[in-house]
């Protein structure tokens, strides 16, 4: 797995053609809401439990 593959997969999942240009100012005051974090943690736990068979 390369960093380019991570980027390519991320763009594909978000249906984006290029990396969004974001400045530091965009991030100011940005807080991750509790329900978003909970969804992230649930997916993280699920991904540890389920495996997909490759080739």
């Amino acid at each position, binding site marked *: 797995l390369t960093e380019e593959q991570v980027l390519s997969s991320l763009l594909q999942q978000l249906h984006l053609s290029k*990396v969004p240009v974001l400045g*530091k100012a965009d991030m100011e005051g940005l807080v991750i809401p509790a329900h978003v974090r909970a*969804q992230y943690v649930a997916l993280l736990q699920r*991904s540890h439990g389920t495996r997909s068979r490759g*080739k």
Partner: protein
Amino acid sequence: RFSQNFREVAGRFLVSEASTHLLVFAMEQRLPPNSELVQAVLRLFQEPVPKAALRRHERLFPGSDRARVTVQWLHVRDDGSNRTSLIDSRLVSIHESGWKALDVTEAVNFWQQLHRPRQPLLLQVSVQREHLGPLASSAHRLIRFTSQGPSGAGQGEPQLELHTLDFRDYGAQGNCDPKAPITEGTRCCRQEMYIDLQGLKWAENWVLEPPGFLAYECVGTCQQPPESLTFKWPFLGPRQCIASETTSLPMIVSMEEGGKRRPQVVSLPNMRVQKCSCAWDGAPVPRKLAP
């Protein structure tokens, strides 16, 4: 048939001529533990057709001397219902005789997916007409395979040949030893590889979680089987060290929505290697047994 909107259309059998044989193989303990099934071959002995019968057939159906031999895996479900899966189908000539080899690897793969205690392996072999219709050849009636006779007398009776590879020699070794350097001789293993997202320019201010993750990679080499095996299966490439099981990677990214930045969860498939295995390049992926 009870609907007013549909006319009932009666069907009828056009042709229902086939000889079917059910072969039963007791399989428990036939496959060594910690081994991989490479190929399962069903060998059937096709008996020679008597010359007089051949001459009669040629006179009645000139140029039409083949029948279709089909192998299906039969699964008797817990509720008693039957299900068949097509495994192999081919045309066989009445002029041939001797051992016929049919690839039944998929049937054994299916059987391996059954819950224990597993029923025996059931293979249904049917011989059918090559074509349908009133003028179709009846070559299928002349194709005979030697069936299992009384014990000791069974020359030419059906055989199941199982080719396996021992994982102790031909498999991967789990996680790599972090103290040992990776060399050409290293046996296939899973090595830690950290992807640092914080250090990537494109991820800056976009990817909020995680700061990085352990992706792992498969490194090392796999022992190749003896020459005799690769000669038998020339369509297969060498055994390679590959990621056989992977998991997804969830992320929180900052997305624009209505001119505002909002954190959003996204899951990237196959990002982390869970298991490395030695696998044939070009080998078909075994079909999953449908419920």
